């Protein structure tokens, strides 16, 4: 914590949000300032609270599946995958190989879409207006694939418990491959605009440092943890959906600052493309649904299943009492847990960096508040 100064007497409390464009939704941050210096913050959240966990207890397992799309609405496919895996775990079933491969393709496409949205808005917050247009242009192509596949662009509800609802459409593989070929050079284009840009480096380097120990203390996961140098990704550590078959690297940073988080996410987009290319080449033929009873009624028990969502570890803890509805359904949202570290990251920094740090945490308020 910074030393107290003579300006303490005039500590200024400023309210940022909930209606502030760079809080990425309805986040309210109360800033305590000493001149330009941030002495402390307090997050006020809950503006988007819809009681998702309570809804879960009052819906059947299948009925609840579309609700999870509405938590992290920029990565709905990941949410759905985590939920389906959790229920499948409770029922001790597994999706057939074809469904798993398609799941991987769509989930990784979603990771790209989520990171593109982050990059566009993060750059916009910092004052670089151009990238947002490019990012949304590329993201549009991903959303078109989703739309062709399941009819929805954002809240996709792409997966079902035990597999997939829909067979892939004609030309799915070609379209995905075409997207990958087209997309990779675009990442280089973004990097040309930003990576060695002096203003970009000036605004990002050394800002909002969160080292590995602090990350672990706070339970921060995802790109934020990796930027601090921890080579940990659930897709490698505890593979699910057949991720162990694919070759990919876990990008890491060194300093745990905003710039490292930027480079980690950029590389993650390339790695996601790499996974998609392998997965789409190997989609086996076969059924798309496992043997799932019409009425989903897991035996009495409980399970915690988590996946590597674009924002970090997304977990579902479900308690079943052998009825058609979960007895308790807990979502472990990465955004909520990561946001908790905001205070540590902004303390002692400048007020202008708060915006950069909120952007680099890549939170979605729908998931923070649930």
């Amino acid at each position, binding site marked *: 914590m910074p030393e107290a100064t003579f300006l303490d007497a005039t500590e200024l409390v400023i309210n940022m949000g909930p209606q502030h464009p760079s809080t990425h939704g309805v986040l309210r941050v109360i800033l305590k300032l000493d001149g330009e210096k941030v002495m402390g913050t307090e997050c006020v959240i*809950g503006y988007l609270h819809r009681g998702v966990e309570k809804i879960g207890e009052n819906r059947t397992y299948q009925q609840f599946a579309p609700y999870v799309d509405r938590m992290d609405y920029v990565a709905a496919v990941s949410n759905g995958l985590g939920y389906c895996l959790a229920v499948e775990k409770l029922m001790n079933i597994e999706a057939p190989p074809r469904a798993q491969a398609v799941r991987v393709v769509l989930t990784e496409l979603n990771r790209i879409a989520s990171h593109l949205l982050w990059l566009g808005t993060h750059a916009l917050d910092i004052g670089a207006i151009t990238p947002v247009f490019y990012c949304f242009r590329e993201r549009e192509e991903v959303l078109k694939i989703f739309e062709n596949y399941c009819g929805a662009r954002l809240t996709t509800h792409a997966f079902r418990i035990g597999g997939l609802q829909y067979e892939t459409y004609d030309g799915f593989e070609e379209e995905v491959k075409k997207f990958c070929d087209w997309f990779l050079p675009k990442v280089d284009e973004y990097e040309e605009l930003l990576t060695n840009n002096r203003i970009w480096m000036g605004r990002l380097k050394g800002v909002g440092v969160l080292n590995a120990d602090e990350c672990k*203390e706070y*339970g921060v996961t995802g790109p934020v943890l990796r930027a601090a140098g921890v080579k*940990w990704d659930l897709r490698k*550590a505890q593979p699910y959906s057949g991720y162990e078959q694919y070759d990919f690297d876990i990008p890491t940073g060194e300093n745990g600052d905003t710039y490292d988080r930027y480079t980690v996410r950029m590389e993650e987009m390339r790695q996601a493309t790499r996974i998609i290319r392998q997965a789409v080449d190997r989609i086996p033929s076969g059924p798309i649904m496992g043997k799932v009873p019409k009425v989903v009624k897991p035996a009495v028990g409980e399970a915690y299943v988590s996946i590597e969502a674009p924002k970090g570890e997304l*977990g579902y803890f479900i308690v079943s009492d052998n009825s058609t509805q979960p*007895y*308790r359904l807990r979502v472990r949202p990465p955004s909520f847990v990561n946001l*908790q570290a905001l205070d540590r990251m902004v303390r002692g920094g400048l007020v202008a960096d708060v915006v950069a740090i909120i952007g680099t945490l890549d939170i979605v308020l729908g998931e923070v508040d649930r």
Partner: protein
Amino acid sequence: MADEQKPEGAAPPPKPAAPAHAAPPKPPATMVTTPWESDITALLKERFGEAITEFSTYLGQSFLVAKPDAVIPILEALKLELDFDYLVDITAVDYPKRAERFDVVYILYSFARNERIRVKTMIQDGARPATAVGVHVGANWLEREVFDMFGIEFEGHPDMRRILLPEEWEGYPLRKENSILRQDDAWVKENLGIESGQ
């Protein structure tokens, strides 16, 4: 087409007689677990003895059940001696008919061992379990959410306030007695100026 114009109320084809074999066995009413034994359990057994009442595995996921007072020392031992340095989540489950009404569940992960375990404890309504903030800083918001949703107050927590709901809100939504439709109508009326949010 003539075939489709069947008279209304035509009797459906008779159902085949129910097969003779017995109905499938009823699923068990409790969680069918297997005992869990490893170096973790050995160390904890030696250290905490009677305070840990169960070591089990269900679906390949290990958990232990401990007495409420022992939870924080267990978390500490797990963190310092067995590398469970990442507190994934804290949550609760409400069983209104049970004398010890709530399960409080701590999910832990160890980067070094690549292993995930759960620590569970049962507490009565109104009991104040000790906070885990002293062991894992990240417990702060997670415990606040448990308080917000279940009304479980954590002793020694630095900031025991609601986190998602407004501070003046009455009631704890995830308790089973609150149906999905029930809410704090007075708050809604006063602050939102509408009769009901439903």
